[in-house]
Structures are given as structure tokens and as C-alpha cells.
């Protein structure tokens, strides 16, 4: 019941914010996605851009997870060699 009552209110206020501002912000958001740089940017339906943004963020998360797994294994291996740890530190700074 409260859900039904709030939804028309939600959609009304939502449309007041969105239409103009979304059309302004969409190209900026689209420029961030890696695909947008290859394709022509006119397929700018808001839903599609949002969807691709979500999946791109998810893939970035997955990459970070994989990299952290790899790093944890590598760190376990290299931590025992202190001269090489010093080398790494000097290389990075």
C-alpha cells in the first residue's frame, strides 16, 4: 500500500530531475566507457549507458579481485627475500 502511494510520487519527482539533466550528463558518462571511444556515440539511450556503466564497474571489480589474488600469492613468495624487497622499494620510490 505505501509502496503504491509512494511510487507515483517517486516517478513524478524522478522525471523532474532526470530528463534534461540526464541528457546533459549522459555523454560525459559515456565518454568514460571504453566502448564509447570506438563506436559513434549516438546510441545514447540512458538505460543502455547505465547498464554498460554497471557492467564495466563490475568487470573492473573482478579485475581488481584477480589482481589482488595474484598479488597476495606473489607477496607470500617474495616476502622471504629481504634484499629483493629493498630493491622493489627503491624501484617504486
Amino acid at each position, binding site marked *: 500500500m505505501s509502496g503504491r502511494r509512494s511510487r507515483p510520487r517517486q516517478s513524478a519527482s524522478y522525471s523532474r530531475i532526470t530528463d534534461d539533466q540526464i541528457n546533459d550528463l549522459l555523454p560525459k558518462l559515456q565518454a568514460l566507457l571504453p566502448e564509447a571511444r570506438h563506436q559513434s556515440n549516438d546510441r545514447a539511450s540512458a538505460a543502455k549507458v547505465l547498464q554498460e556503466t554497471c557492467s564495466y564497474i563490475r568487470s*573492473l571489480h573482478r579485475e581488481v579481485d584477480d589482481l589482488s589474488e595474484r598479488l597476495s600469492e606473489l607477496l607470500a613468495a617474495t616476502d622471504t627475500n629481504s634484499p629483493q624487497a629493498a630493491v622493489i622499494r627503491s624501484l*617504486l620510490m
Partner: protein
Amino acid sequence: MNIQTEAAGREEITISDAAIDPVTPSPGKYRVRKRKNGTLKTAQRSACRWRTNYQQRIYCSKLVEALRRVRRTEAPPPAEHPHGRSVRETADRVLAVAARGRTRWSRAILADRPIGVKLRRARGAAAAASCSIRRKKSGASDPAGGRRVNQPSLERKAKLLGRLVPGCRKLSLPSLLDETSDYIAALEMQVRAMSALAEILSASGSGAAGDGAVAAGQLESNPPGYSGAGTLQ
């Protein structure tokens, strides 16, 4: 800790806002002004900031230090090597620190850690349950209006996006897109930095310090006239 980060955030915002608009009267209004006027500027600024080599190097060195500290505190002879999970959390935290408290997602990451993931999971489960109920209701009303179909789906996707970016669930759409652009740029830098770090570690781990030097030279991506590999040899 919240007070400190909030004060730091306010300081940052007032400094940048003084650059944009020196006429505004009171410091309390700065935050609102910044959100409304600065969307394009903040996007460009944030993307450029995360792409610089300088930023990446800072992140790398901080990450190495943080990882070392974590390894030392976890257990001196680790029974199992530190899970990817703790590395991931460390990396996220260092990323949030590198953001210097200017963005909501970074503050959310830093604030969220001590409380723990349990609360978030419980809240997430409750939110997911209520979301599914709402979705069923909107599905029932679909034949009622053609336009209403588009808006809930758009809103749903915006909420999904808000859930992906930490700390941005209840954000209005323009500020959400702001945060998203900065978050994506930061994540890309995180990926670049961590993969470079992994390259260095694996190269040096295989026993050839010379290879590690070459890999580090690529990481530093030389300013003209300076060759990292050359000086090390």
C-alpha cells in the same frame, strides 16, 4: 573519525570553490553550490587526476607500504598466505586515501571499514528483499501505462549503479554520475597500478633483478631524458 573526514572534505570543497566562485557568502552553502555548478569541471578534473603517472606512483608506494604492514600484523608466519580479500580491502582503502576525501565513495570506504561488512550484508539483504517486492508490484502495473515502464527500469538501473559505487545508494542522479565518473577513473588507475606491481613482483620473484628493473622502468613511463632502467644498471 567521521568528524575529521567531514571537516577535511569541507576544507577541500571550500578551497576549490573559492577558486571557482569567490563571491559566495557563507561556508555552509559551498557544498550545495559545488554540486550544482561543477559537474563537468569535476569530471574532467577527476579523470585527469587519476590518469597522471604521479598519482599512480603515489598509489603504488602507499600500497606497498600498507601491504607490508598488513602482512606483519596478520601473523608473522602466516598459516595461509593473506587472502586476496585482505589485499583487495587494503588496495581499496589506499585508493580511498589517495582520493583525499573529496569524493563520497572514498569517504564511504574509509568510514565503512571498522564497522564491518556484516552490517552492510544484513542491510543489503533487507534492501534486496524490499526491492524484489517493489519490482513485482511495478511488473503488475506494466499494462497500465506505457511511460511508466521506462521510468522504473531506468530508476532500477540507477539504483544498481548506486549500489556498485560505495556510499552512493541514496544519491540523486547527477551527483551519482559525478561519483561514478571519479570512481571509474580511480578503479582504472588501481588496475593499472596493481598489474604493474604484480609484474614487478613476478619479475623479481623469478630471480632476475634486471627484469624487475625493466618492468619498473615501464611503470615509471619516463619523462623525457630519464631512463629508469639505464640508471639502475
